[in-house]
């Protein structure tokens, strides 16, 4: 679920809003009663966040342990949802890394494939699975945090209820079924009961929490409840990165061929 953690780009970041129609309200009213199954909660969260595409400009502030701040920004295009999605992240600032890009191709049954393009050397490089615990270009997101996985790649357990930012949440533990493919042993997810947005993720290695993603500023964008501010804290380094999503759009036309290694080089 760790990966789900930064499904931020998609999953958590995108939750479908309840329609104002009576039948829908009826079903929404019913959901909490049967959604005590943690897997169903996650499935419902994913269902609400399902979109055909997404685009946003990310503004990042990276705070070091000594509280020094550096600013970065990127644009993200994403086609599809969850286990079958593809995304390209391109840095637009600082000027030094402008043009650096990452292609993430998610798979429903295994870890994603990732390639990074560095224009200064004119080379694309595949990010090996064992290297995905590394921080992504000086942010507190790791390469693994940038992928998203299908609900079937995890086992879930409901461990309680706990409010986050005053909103009642289910607390769910998610363990990857193929432990070798993740740097994390398990993750805790807090899913809001009112809109099924994931309010917080905590990723563990063994029993130690190592990264926490806190999602706030939840807004309804084109019918999708979306956290517009994501704060990732590296609990070991004591550094954090705040990502704000700007110019966010869903379901805009995108072509499949824009998400290939050839397109990454452009």
């Amino acid at each position, binding site marked *: 679920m760790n990966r789900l953690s930064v499904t931020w780009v998609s999953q958590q970041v995108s939750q479908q809003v309840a329609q104002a129609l009576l039948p829908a309200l009826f079903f929404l009213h019913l959901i909490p009663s049967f959604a005590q199954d943690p897997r169903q909660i996650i499935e419902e969260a994913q269902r609400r966040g399902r979109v055909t595409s997404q685009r946003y400009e990310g503004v990042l502030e990276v705070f070091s342990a000594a509280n020094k701040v550096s600013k970065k920004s990127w644009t993200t295009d994403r086609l599809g949802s969850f286990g079958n999605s593809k995304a390209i992240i391109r840095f637009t600032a*600082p000027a030094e890394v402008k043009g650096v890009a990452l292609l993430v191709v998610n798979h429903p049954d295994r870890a994603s*494939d990732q390639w990074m393009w560095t224009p200064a050397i004119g080379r694309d490089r595949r990010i*090996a699975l*064992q290297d995905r615990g590394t921080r992504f270009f*000086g942010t507190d997101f790791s390469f693994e945090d940038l992928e998203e996985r299908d609900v079937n790649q995890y086992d879930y357990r409901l461990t309680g209820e706990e409010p986050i930012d005053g909103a009642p949440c289910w607390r769910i533990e998610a363990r990857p079924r193929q432990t070798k493919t993740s740097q994390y042993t398990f993750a805790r997810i807090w899913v809001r009961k009112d809109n099924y947005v994931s309010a917080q993720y905590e990723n563990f290695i063994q029993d130690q929490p190592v990264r926490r993603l806190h999602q706030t500023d939840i807004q309804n964008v084109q019918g999708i409840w979306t956290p517009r501010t994501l704060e990732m804290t590296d609990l070991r380094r004591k550094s954090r990165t705040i990502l704000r999503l700007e110019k966010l759009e869903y379901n805009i036309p995108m072509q499949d*061929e824009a998400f290939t*290694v050839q397109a990454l080089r*452009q």
Partner: protein
Amino acid sequence: MKSSALCLLFCLSLTAQFTQRGYLETTAIAYPETAPNDSSHAAGESLFRYEAFYKLTNFRFAGAVDARTDTHLETERTLDLSWWDRTRQRPAFTIRRLSVTYTRGKFTFEAGKQFIRWGKADVLNPTDRFAPRDFVNVIDTDFLGITAARLTYGTPSDSIDLVCAPRLTPSRVPLLNQRWAILPPGVPIHELDPALPGAPQYGARWNHIGAIAEYSFSFYNGFDNLPLYRAELRADLQRYYPQMRMYGADAAMPLGPVTFKTEAAYFTSTNPQADEYALYVLQLERQAGEWSFVGGYAGQVVTSHGNSLAFSPQRGFTRSFVAHAGYTIDTNRSLALEAIIRQNGNGILLKPEYTQSFGQHWRITAALAAIRGQPPDFIGQYHQNSHGILTVRYSF
């Protein structure tokens, strides 16, 4: 009609994307020792690079220009704008890139001046045949763009690259009156105009991404972009670029905690003056936390010896252990160390580097290139060229 045209323009403007980037960089280099053909202890150079990209539906236009100057005439003092990049000195103004790319479905076609990089290894790329370099400073190089047409067919698991370049862009070699050219003592050398081939080069590469490994096979037919020398009269040297055919392969495979990469190529030539040889690289790479590490061995096997004098850094750096380590101190500071150590111990290059960024635009890099070894060795022959480097860059 007019309204249709306006409508079309409006639609095009909605789908167009323009991006640009660039930098102005000034570098100071200090040499503690003089060289037999170069008495200077300090040199400086400045480079302005601007790149722009414009995307319009399925078309993408890319352009880049360089403007540069320096204190030691490594750069021409004329205002000519160079396209072919075949001049002896670095041109003051160069079109670094100017190409148009058309994408339709699984096909991508790019024509014009562009960069084509093949291979997977990091320490040396024997299969990177369409990537000539500027070797005016042998250990601090930059790639030169080539004029070519490139057709790529790509699926998620396979890609096929077909490349045709109508003219060779040679690598730029060290200037004879400067320290990176090692000349026999006491013999005045005069360099004649080079004999540059006029025939085209072409190549193909198939890359496959499998479940446990990614690998590719490549073929190149054309000319070596690094020269051989022939002596005309006594001390008149002329560069020429022998015919070359390459059969290459490369692969990358995750192995537990590390990634194993290998790349190999076998080179033949119809020119009897040229060697026939194989180059190969075996390397391991790992990133963990703030550390990155690449280490490996670059080897060479000569199957047939020619008898011409050659300048080939690519071959000169083989039969060596090569390593690169990087450490990110924080978001603004990083350290790196590059090492090339000949297996016989006759040449060593160590290059520690410290980089610090300031704000969104400024970066300073301080580096030291320490070269030790014996004169007959390719690295060792530059033992008087150890130097310190300070670079200030403003990026935008």
